[in-house]
């Protein structure tokens, strides 16, 4: 319908009615008369030579036409493939009550809660979010959310370096490569000495990390479960980091914390992650939800917004944005971060999601993910020519298999059979051309897993 670039749209001129502008032409004339101006006067301060004289974009459309148009565009996206894609972003079930809560306009049409008396809804929900993140990760304090898991990990790295007053970072390549490339980009203009270690058998490489760890090291960056889906206990790395005066920063998958040992219990200093798995749709890459939690002693080093509990003049419980002196609107170029927005509405979605699942529901969902992944592991390894890439026994809901041929080719063929079978690791890892990363969530059925196994066997 739209033909952009190269051709001009037909412009039929002005329309009388505008659904999002309330004033009528009569009211406009009345207002102008009252303040003694003409319509032309309103832009009289802008020299004629600077004006553009209108835009070359289409005429406005009716809502009916726009909805039909966008429905046709949406139909061009293939969402009907049975998906085993993960890589840190997962197709989990989202209860209806999450959507209905998010559609409360009192939440989504509000701004950052600078006026706490009429923002208690946003503020208390955010405090509850912070509390849930702490309870999930076994940490003591959390901020109000970050843009996404990748920017959260970068900000955690910078926070760790500020605390340690050092510049060196050791990062294992079992950390999500999507986040690693972001960290490289952001660090480019800063004095960060970034050392990358190569994983050992799918886990953070102890030997290489300990070898690189010295008195200059401020931060060790690791992930659990890591990008390959492997489960690790990072307690030894926390101890090693602390011995050298460094901090352990752990990126985690919050769904897994329904059952897995927490970063807090391992001794992590800063914990981040992507909250998309907690009630947010995949939405082609965003909006998502970064989270960040730490020890109480580091609360004042956290970037981003933070909500705290206090009392009003009557002694009633209430919530406010707190520790604002760290932030850009007060500290300007001395702020701990330039972040202004968080992802408040996404944090609300996760808070509602975790409230609905509750203590038992989160545990059961995490167990389901792991059981189904275990079933998939059995089915796929039974296929002649398919082998697990790592010897590591323990995976959460994602795993790496080696195929007899190029994985990207096989995945391409399986798309034709109706499956998004997984992600080819050749994109990020040398020497892994035949390796495929397969994720299984609680939404996948035994039958779907079996069908993929059969199609895969037929293709190989």
């Amino acid at each position, binding site marked *: 319908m739209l033909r952009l670039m190269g051709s001009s749209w037909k412009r039929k001129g002005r329309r009388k009615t505008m659904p999002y*502008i309330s004033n009528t032409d009569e009211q406009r004339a009345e207002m102008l008369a009252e303040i003694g101006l003409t319509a032309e006067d309103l832009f009289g301060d802008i020299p004629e030579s600077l004006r553009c004289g209108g835009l070359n974009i289409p005429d406005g*459309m009716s809502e009916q036409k726009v909805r039909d148009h966008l429905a046709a565009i949406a139909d061009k996206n293939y969402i009907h493939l049975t998906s085993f894609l993960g890589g840190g972003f997962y197709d989990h079930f989202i209860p209806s009550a999450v959507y209905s809560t998010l559609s409360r306009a009192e939440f989504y049409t509000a701004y950052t809660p600078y006026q706490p008396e009429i923002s208690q*809804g946003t503020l208390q929900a955010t405090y509850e979010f912070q509390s849930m993140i702490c*309870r999930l990760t076994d940490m003591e304090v959390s901020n109000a959310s970050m*843009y996404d898991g990748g920017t959260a990990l970068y900000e955690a790295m910078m926070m760790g370096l500020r605390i340690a007053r050092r510049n060196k970072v050791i990062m294992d390549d079992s950390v999500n490569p999507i986040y690693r490339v972001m960290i490289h980009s952001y660090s480019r203009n800063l004095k960060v000495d970034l050392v990358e270690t190569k994983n050992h058998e799918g886990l953070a490489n102890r030997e290489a990390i300990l070898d690189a760890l010295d008195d200059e090291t401020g931060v060790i960056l690791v992930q659990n479960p890591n990008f390959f889906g492997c489960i690790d206990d990072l307690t030894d790395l926390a101890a090693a980091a602390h011995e050298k005066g460094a901090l352990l920063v752990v990126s985690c998958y919050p769904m897994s914390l329904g059952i897995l040992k927490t970063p807090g219990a391992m001794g992590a200093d800063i914990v981040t992650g992507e909250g998309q798995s907690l009630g947010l749709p995949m939405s082609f890459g965003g909006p998502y939800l970064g989270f960040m939690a730490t020890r109480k002693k580091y609360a004042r080093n956290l970037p981003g917004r933070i909500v705290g509990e206090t009392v009003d003049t009557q002694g009633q419980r209430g919530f406010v944005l707190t520790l604002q002196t760290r932030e850009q609107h007060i500290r300007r170029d001395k702020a701990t971060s330039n972040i202004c*927005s968080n992802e408040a509405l996404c944090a609300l979605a996760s808070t509602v999601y975790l409230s609905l699942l509750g203590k038992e529901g*989160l545990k059961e969902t995490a167990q389901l993910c792991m059981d189904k992944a275990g*079933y998939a592991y059995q089915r796929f390894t039974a296929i002649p020519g398919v082998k697990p890439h790592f010897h590591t026994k323990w995976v959460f809901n994602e795993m790496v298999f080696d195929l007899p041929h190029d994985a990207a080719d096989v995945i391409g063929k399986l798309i034709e059979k109706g499956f998004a079978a997984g992600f080819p690791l050749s994109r990020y890892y040398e020497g892994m051309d035949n390796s495929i990363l397969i994720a299984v969530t609680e939404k996948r059925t035994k039958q779907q897993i079996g069908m993929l196994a059969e199609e895969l066997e037929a293709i190989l």
Partner: protein
Amino acid sequence: MELVFEKSVKGRRGLRIAKSDVPTCVNLDQSLLRGKDAELPELSELDVVRHFTELSRRNFGVDTNFYPLGSCTMKYNPKVCERIATYPGFAHLHPLLPQLRSGGMLTQGALEVLYEMDVILCEICGMDAFTMQPMAGAHGELTGIMMMAAYHQDRGNTKTKILVPDSAHGTNPASAAIAGYTVRSVPSDENGLMSFEALKEMLDDEVAGIMLTCPNTLGLFNPHVREICDLIHSVDGLAYYDGANLNAITGKVRPGDLGFDIVHVNLHKTFATPHGGGGPGSGPVGVVERLARYLPISTVVKREDGTFALDYHKPKSIGYIAPFYGNFGIVLRAYVYILMLGHEGLERVAENAVLNANYIKEKLKPYYDIEHGQLCKHECVFSATRQAQNGVHAIDIAKGLLDRGFHPPTMYFPTIVKEALMIEPTECESKETIDLFIDAMIELARTAEKAPETIKASPTTTAVGRLDETKASRQLNIASL
């Protein structure tokens, strides 16, 4: 109000989880399991829905109250945008799909939206290429400054300074500092505009660029903006346009035509996507042709056969600033908004936003001090200095407005105005609503003279009264454990 945890009743469930159809075959080593369960609340679905509905009623939003919060452009968020964002074809699309071999054809619809937004924003801003990746305005600023740094490195320039006017948003100096630059603040002149003389004095070869909002945070359009950009270009610096105030000039003036090289736009301001209580936002960044090579990876391209693809081959790029393609769901909403309005609608947005702001400015002039009372654009900045003589400060006026059913203006910003009250009505609001707001402001000015103590006691009609922020900061309680 009780916390969600305090409503928990042991054994209660809010979701029936699908029965497992596979055997439990994994028995993890005990050392890898969590010691005790995460203490999440145990509630029925009704408990949860009622809790969050009750919370929502303790909020003001644009749909419930007039929200003239200066510099934040709290315009109406059309419902059609929300509805379309929930179409399964968009909401359930996995971001890795187009990165699979022959996978690009599986996401043509999403790529089309990103591509067309690129073209549309280029037209609105007078730029040559856009990235949709920055996930908020400040994130866009950082992206823009990173591109500025890449440009200078490429040219062999060793530049260290970024100039920022003293009226700028706090994110400008913070973004420049985080990208590794030193920030120099340029003072304003007696007209409330950045001092051209001071700028000339501060300009030298160390200047990498300047960051400007136009109109500025006082709502004033600087007629010399093109000369400022020329001056910056004369030392091979780049001019950055902070699009926070773009709503004032859409369809009237294009930053690119003014001489700017880099632009960020806040989709959650100018293009009506919801603020969400503080996010998610979206801050696409546009550049002129000679900077396009530095845009983040990836970009969407249109092939000769009319299909869309992601381009990852960008050797000069600043790299990866977002996990995928930005806050797609937000970009989509803004795209729908622009299609609904069309070119004529966007021009009318600016016209009505400016009319509403000037109407308020003229009507309130007799009652509140205003240092720069000339024609404004989308917002006007008053000062409560007259009221402060009776002990009624900007914050008290703000709290008084809460009791009268209005969200207050932005307080104490820009910092160059004492007791600042920054009012941005947006184009959406009707004369009736604005008149009620003006009446409330006049009544508050009168009360400030006659009975200031009644305003100091405000708010009394809200869910809670004034809160003890010192206690919040000193006796830090930021999580219920």
